[in-house]
């Protein structure tokens, strides 16, 4: 078969919705795009543990602490599912970790914002995980098999993340005046960055067309963003809070909410490393990696030693 035959067979599979599996032939750019997207996604789960981890020791009750611990542990698990999916494409775990730690690979910019009050943990669950779920549900049908399977597992677990966040805010919104202010303040700070999580507008997203053709992406950034806004407006009403966008208005004709302009300058600033916590996040990851090096080395040395002993015992027995 020539490369052209392979390409045709690949295109046909995509058109027929047959999943691409690790050992199947695939175009180099498909592989590269997936490695970039899946590893960024994995990095986001891992770095995403940091802003929430900030509140584990200060959760207001034992119940909230247990829930937050479980959620942060899930994020670690999600990162690992995704790293494992990316590794099927021929990149090693260490290469990915190195790319994250050197700043070469990106992760979701949302995690470069600080968590200043307990209400932020609620807002992250509701808005940030809510936005992530919109994306992730669409990715359950992505064309690359291992990625789609990882997303199915992740989506099953994410639902609790969003619900626990909303519950935190709901609880506080029925509390004291100060608690209600905290909720509103958290929503004010997390709303716009959450909308930015869907990525640049379709006009400004040069890779979207190709990703849609490959069925890596199933919906465009703007489609998913709109869907998120439409459901979230209603959820906000139940909290009795306001979304910080004076232009937010139901558009009968479109059947969607119109919304105000997103500050893309801020988005690119944070993407390019100048958000409030970029340096802190990368430093935390690098420190954890370096301080854990002796554990990784010791575990390998111990495993070698045990293998050697087992071999010696075998030789003696024989």
């Amino acid at each position, binding site marked *: 078969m020539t490369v052209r035959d392979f390409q045709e067979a690949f295109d046909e599979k995509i058109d027929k919705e047959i999943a691409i599996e690790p050992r199947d032939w695939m175009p180099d750019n498909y592989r590269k795009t997936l490695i970039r997207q899946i590893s960024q996604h994995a990095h986001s789960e891992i770095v995403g543990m940091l802003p929430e981890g900030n509140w584990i020791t200060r959760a207001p009750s034992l119940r909230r602490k247990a829930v937050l611990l479980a959620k942060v542990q899930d994020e670690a698990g999600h990162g690992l599912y995704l790293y494992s999916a990316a590794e099927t494409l021929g990149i090693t775990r260490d290469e990915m970790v190195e790319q994250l730690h050197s700043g070469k690979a990106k992760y979701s910019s949302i995690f470069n914002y600080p968590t200043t009050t307990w209400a932020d943990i609620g807002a992250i669950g509701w808005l940030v995980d809510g936005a992530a779920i919109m994306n992730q549900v669409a990715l359950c049908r992505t064309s690359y098999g291992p990625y789609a399977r990882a997303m199915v597992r992740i989506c099953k677990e994410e639902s609790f993340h969003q619900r626990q966040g909303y519950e935190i805010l709901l609880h506080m919104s029925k509390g004291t005046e100060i608690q209600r202010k905290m909720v509103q303040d958290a929503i004010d700070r997390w709303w716009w960055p959450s909308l930015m999580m869907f990525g640049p507008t379709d006009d400004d997203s040069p890779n979207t067309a190709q990703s849609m053709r490959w069925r890596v992406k199933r919906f465009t950034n703007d489609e998913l963003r709109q869907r998120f806004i439409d459901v979230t407006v209603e959820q906000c009403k139940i909290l009795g809070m306001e979304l910080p966008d004076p232009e937010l208005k139901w558009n009968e004709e479109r059947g969607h909410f119109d919304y105000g302009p997103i500050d893309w300058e801020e988005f690119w600033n944070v993407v390019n490393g100048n958000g409030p916590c970029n340096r802190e996040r990368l430093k935390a990851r690098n420190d954890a990696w370096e301080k854990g090096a002796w554990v*990784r080395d010791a575990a390998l040395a111990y495993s070698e030693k045990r293998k050697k002993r087992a071999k010696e015992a075998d030789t003696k027995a024989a």
Partner: protein
Amino acid sequence: MSDQNNNKAEWPLWEVFIRSKAGLDHKHVGSLHAADAEMAIENARDVYTRRMEGVSIWVIESKYIHASDPDNAASLYEPANDKIYRHPTFYDLPDELKHM
């Protein structure tokens, strides 16, 4: 952080198989890194069974898995293609025939 350090210390990759409940087969769920089999099973418990997804875990180092070549799939499975008489529906039998 250094590249050499990274490459030298990477734990081997393991494939994880989980039996979701007694009576069912183990099914492949993904992979993970661990220094040895014992650690691979412990990590698999933490990564893949946080919500009681399993009652039994198998792990095997990925390098020991041998797989068929997908590009040969057509010729590899070809002998089965023209033997539809292996399926019960191949046989044309009267409708009034029961329990068969």
